[in-house]
């Protein structure tokens, strides 16, 4: 009843959800979670440009790796633009995020309208990157996304202590000689990697929710970082897998939407549990 390909996609999405949930905890604690919104939207022009370049070179139009590389590059440019805006001292981070996400997304849609006029299948499937469509992922796509997610987890495991110090007590971390700036960059890199890996399954519009929702739910019902990471990872994995299942069963429902709604059910449960505990 569940084919081999479906199973691989399911596992890939679960790994992705787990990684997003865990990276999301650090991002949320450090007050950076919304950057994922800018990163996701800013990836679109990169995806489109990569697919246009691939088509021009005569390469395989639907090979995921170059598209994700393009996504990562343009998302990085988006973050640089955001930093330039906020460095002016006049524009706060939230306004900067609004500018970056809407302008980059707009550029991406212009690129999509160009791609549509070209012969061939250059643009085929590109719109899946906007809303996510796990059902159309191939086994290799799922392995790539899942692999990226696992790599993020490995980085976190290696840097767990300094990351924890960074998120809970920056001043103490500094006094202990923790390289705060470098660690913040690592966290940003992880955020970028998780968002980009999530594009084909969850889509760029809603990937931010996969970082915020499990972490917010986990913080409500746990004490201590390890427990929070465990709960957020599990909830993220469950949401990712549910999204993939829904996408396979009901092809019309965008995977991203299903993932978000599944995650929010978990969040609702967490609120209820924390209320009962407080009583």
């Amino acid at each position: 009843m569940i084919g081999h390909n479906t199973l691989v996609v399911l596992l890939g999405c679960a790994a992705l959800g787990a990684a997003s949930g865990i990276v999301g905890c650090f991002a949320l604690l450090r007050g950076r979670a919304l950057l994922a919104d800018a990163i996701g939207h800013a990836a679109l022009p990169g995806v489109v440009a990569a697919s246009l370049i691939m088509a021009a070179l005569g390469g395989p139009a639907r090979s995921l790796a170059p598209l994700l590389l393009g996504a990562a590059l343009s998302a990085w440019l988006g973050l640089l633009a955001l930093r330039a805006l906020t460095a002016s001292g006049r524009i706060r981070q939230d306004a900067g995020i609004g500018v970056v996400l809407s302008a980059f997304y707009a550029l991406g849609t212009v690129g999509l309208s160009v791609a549509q006029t070209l012969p061939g299948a250059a643009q085929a499937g590109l719109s899946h990157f906007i809303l996510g469509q796990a059902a159309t992922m191939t086994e290799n796509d799922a392995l790539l996304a899942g692999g990226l997610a696992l790599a993020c987890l490995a980085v976190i495991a290696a840097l767990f202590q300094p990351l924890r110090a960074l998120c809970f007590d920056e001043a103490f971390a500094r006094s202990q000689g923790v390289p705060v700036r470098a660690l913040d960059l690592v966290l940003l890199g992880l955020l970028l990697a998780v968002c980009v890996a999530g594009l084909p399954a969850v889509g760029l519009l809603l990937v931010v929710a996969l970082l915020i929702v499990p972490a917010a739910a986990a913080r409500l019902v746990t004490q201590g970082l390890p427990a929070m990471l465990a709960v957020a990872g599990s909830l993220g994995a469950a949401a990712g897998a549910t999204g993939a299942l829904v996408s396979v069963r009901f092809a019309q429902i965008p995977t991203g939407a299903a993932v978000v709604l599944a995650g929010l059910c978990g969040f609702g449960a967490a609120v209820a549990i924390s209320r009962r505990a407080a009583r």
Partner: protein
Amino acid sequence: MMDFLRLDLPALLAAIMAGGTCGLLGSFLVLRRESLLGDALSHSILPGIVVGFALTGLRSAWPMLLGALVAALLATLAIGWVRRAARLETGAATGLVFTGFFALGLVLLEVTGARNADIDVDCVLFGQLETLVWLEATGLASLFDTAALAGLPRQLGLLAAVALVAGLVVALCWRPLQLIAFDPDFAASLGMRVGRWEMGLNLLIAGAAVAAFEAVGSILVVAMLICPAVALRLITDRYRVQVLGAAALGAALGAAGVLLAGPLPAAMGLNLSLNAAGLIGTLAGLVVAGSLTVRTNRAAAA
């Protein structure tokens, strides 16, 4: 000329009105440091729009507007509730709520079959400026012919109404809005009910987002709300210049985007048609980059 009247004029008018209205109201978001709310409101109205359509099935704008305003109100309340219940910072609470509303809207769009009617996912994502046409136009005389004018796309009527209301509100409440934008604490000490003013302003912004939604889609509404206001914020300290300048800039960006997308390339003999809504957003981003450069140069010169 005929082609211009039939195919380009409706999109041009829609983009100018949407850009002008959003630009006008966007300054209040940016000055109040609530830019994120622009993002949140423009996404959160989707389920309201879909339900408004599905319940009535009318081709009229009113159920849609009503549904969207209810959704915007619910989303604002939900953000406050999540912030308290989950002890989250405003940014994360806002992100959690608006992605949830948007996801719900997408699912409803598929379930209710509203996608078969006037709005579909493509409209949400890319806008549909290109589909606004005025087939009844037969010549310049049609501009004064009520029967032909009745054939204008209904989106224009809603946009004009919202633009009028927004313009009137800003003109009549010029001083109170300035106080709330720059110094809400002082405004409160004068006995103004700041919370109510802000809620009213948010509903007005949601109304503008609904009207603009059908023209440029959910996501590019954000560009229209935030970018002109940010561009002016970077180069001016004066309230009047900020608010009126952003409105003018928004309208100009709308016009430029539509003209560059189709009519200009066509007039130059190019076979090229770009997404007009996307061009508007791209130009808006470039303008922000331009005014950032102006600001940096000024700082270097000073």
